């Protein structure tokens, strides 16, 4: 197992390196010079050269990249063009708000999605399977930014029982999930955020469970005279690695994919920060947020890999 952990981490390092290369090159995808936002348009050639040297833009690209990487590793992501605050502060603050959302969306989505998938997979082809699979397809096809607006229309505009947007009077700093005046701001974004993972997880779980049910060992179990409950237990255990893999992916998608939902609810999380950075053409923030989120994603994938190996000896031996 130790050997495996070591190998997986070794495999994740080049991926993480590649991810940082992509994040670094984002600056150069932007039209025009990266210095355009800082320099006045009538700057003399001398000033431009001076500023270029000051920011290290006169160096060849690989040197620039290594310097940037060195700063990033020590937590220095540069300064936000819009607010002049260090990017690291902006990103960590926003990330903690996103984690608040995801912390509630994950148990909700995973438990409902898994239950739907198991119920459908145990009765393939029957009406209960059709009804649940139909619901799951709706979840997968749902534009969650639209669903959020529909929820706001229903619960905030028409019924006026839940707040529409934001994090409450105290804002991000004074937010407490233990006070209902604050926590009620979570309800609609959390529901919106969990819809798509519910659809995806229930579809995968259904497929995995139905597939295991078709394997020969189930016939053996039945021939041995095991009760239907015991058989289901065996089947669920065998379908778990596959389900776990998708759940891990979904966790990463929730962290990184909350941008649309956060924009709908003006929830001051990492996604909202990202959309603000895009509007302000704030490249350092854009770069920092994306780097942090994708590193979380890489780390999640690594953890899921190891967890899978832990519960499934077949993977461990491979």
């Amino acid at each position, binding site marked *: 197992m130790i050997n495996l952990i070591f190998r997986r981490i070794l495999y994740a390092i*080049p*991926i*993480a390196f*590649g*991810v940082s*290369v*992509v*994040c670094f090159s*984002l*600056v150069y*995808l*932007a*039209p025009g010079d990266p210095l355009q936002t800082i320099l006045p348009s009538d700057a003399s050639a001398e000033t431009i050269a001076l500023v270029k040297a000051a920011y290290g833009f006169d160096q060849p690209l690989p040197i620039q990249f290594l310097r940037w990487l060195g700063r990033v590793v020590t937590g220095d992501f540069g300064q936000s063009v819009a607010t002049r605050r260090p990017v690291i502060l902006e990103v960590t603050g926003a990330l903690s708000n996103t984690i608040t959302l995801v912390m509630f969306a994950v148990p909700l989505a995973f438990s409902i999605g898994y239950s739907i998938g198991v119920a459908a997979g145990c009765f393939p082809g029957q009406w209960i399977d059709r009804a649940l699979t139909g619901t799951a*397809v*709706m979840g*997968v*096809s*749902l*534009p969650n*930014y*639209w*669903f959020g*607006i*529909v929820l*706001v*229309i229903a619960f905030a*505009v*028409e019924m006026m029982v839940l707040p529409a947007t934001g994090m409450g009077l105290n804002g991000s700093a004074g937010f407490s999930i233990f006070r209902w005046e604050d926590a009620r701001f979570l309800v609609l974004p959390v529901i919106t955020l969990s819809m798509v993972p519910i659809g995806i997880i229930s579809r995968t779980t259904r497929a995995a469970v139905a597939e295991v049910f078709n394997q020969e060992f189930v016939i053996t179990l039945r021939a041995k005279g095991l009760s239907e409950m015991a058989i289901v237990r065996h089947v669920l255990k065998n379908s778990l690695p596959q389900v776990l893999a998708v759940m891990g992916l979904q966790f*990463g*998608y929730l*962290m*990184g*994919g909350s*941008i*649309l939902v956060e*924009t*709908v609810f003006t929830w001051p999380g990492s996604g909202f920060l*990202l*959309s603000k*950075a*895009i*509007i302000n*053409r704030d*490249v350092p923030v*854009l770069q920092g947020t*994306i780097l942090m*989120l*994708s590193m979380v*994603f*890489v780390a999640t*994938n690594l953890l899921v890999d190891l967890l899978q190996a832990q519960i499934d000896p077949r993977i461990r031996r491979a």
Partner: protein
Amino acid sequence: MADTLTLNPRALPAEEDAPPALKVRGYWASVGFRLRHDPVTVFFGCVVLAIVLAAVFAPLLAPFDPYKESVIGRLKPFGWKNHLLGTDELGRDLLSRILYGGRVSLMMGVVPVLIAMVVGGTLGIVGGFGGRKLNTAIMRTMDVFYAFPSVLLAVAISGAMGGGTINGMIALSMVFTPAMCRVAETATAQVKNLDFVEAARATGAGTFTIMRHHILGNVLGPVFIYASSLVSVGILLASGLSFLGLGVKPPVADWGLMLSTLRQSIYVNPLICALPGAAIFITSISFNLVSDGIRSAMDVRM
């Protein structure tokens, strides 16, 4: 009993009332048969066709000019002065805008999938058929792009490039290519060691000929099915980019952009504001169900 009969149709006595299901069909004929007898797929196939036709013939179908504004006719309810679906925040006819909006939304959703199918498919076949080093180089590069959540990667690339329709489509193509490449690579790796490839090589066929004649046909199925399942994701993501302001620029009609501008008016006329999103939802669910139907009809397991 029925199974053995299907397997050996000549053993059947020539009865006039022999059920048609016992006829022996080719692969495509049986795929067509299964599709035709799947009411859900047929129905949603028709919906997809209707949506595509409505977008293509939008200039003929739209009852009003989608860009004609009206100061007094803003955010009017359904059926107001012949505006079947009401008007938007600038007094433009919503039905016409939804019809026109389908053009941009469908194009931004479908074109990247096609690009990714060609680019990713080619890379996957080359990677699967080429040597170990080539395979490692291609697949590890794809792994890096796989390490981003898809929404994040799309937003990052199109955001850094400054938004716009073309940049959005480039970003979505880059999001879909790695996944497509993986599907093609897996399929190629499964086929390339089979006997018929060996036989082709023994008859003196070159690498390119084998790839084109023997590998491509076997890879196309999984790639096509995977691509069809991506169209729905493509439409969702494309509209999402427009929703964030990274797609078309106003006043061009696009479902995602319409949703984001109408969002400010939910307190005035909530029903109208939800409409463009409903169009996205219906389109995406229809493509999804058709793709599911094609997958089970073609009986490809992925």
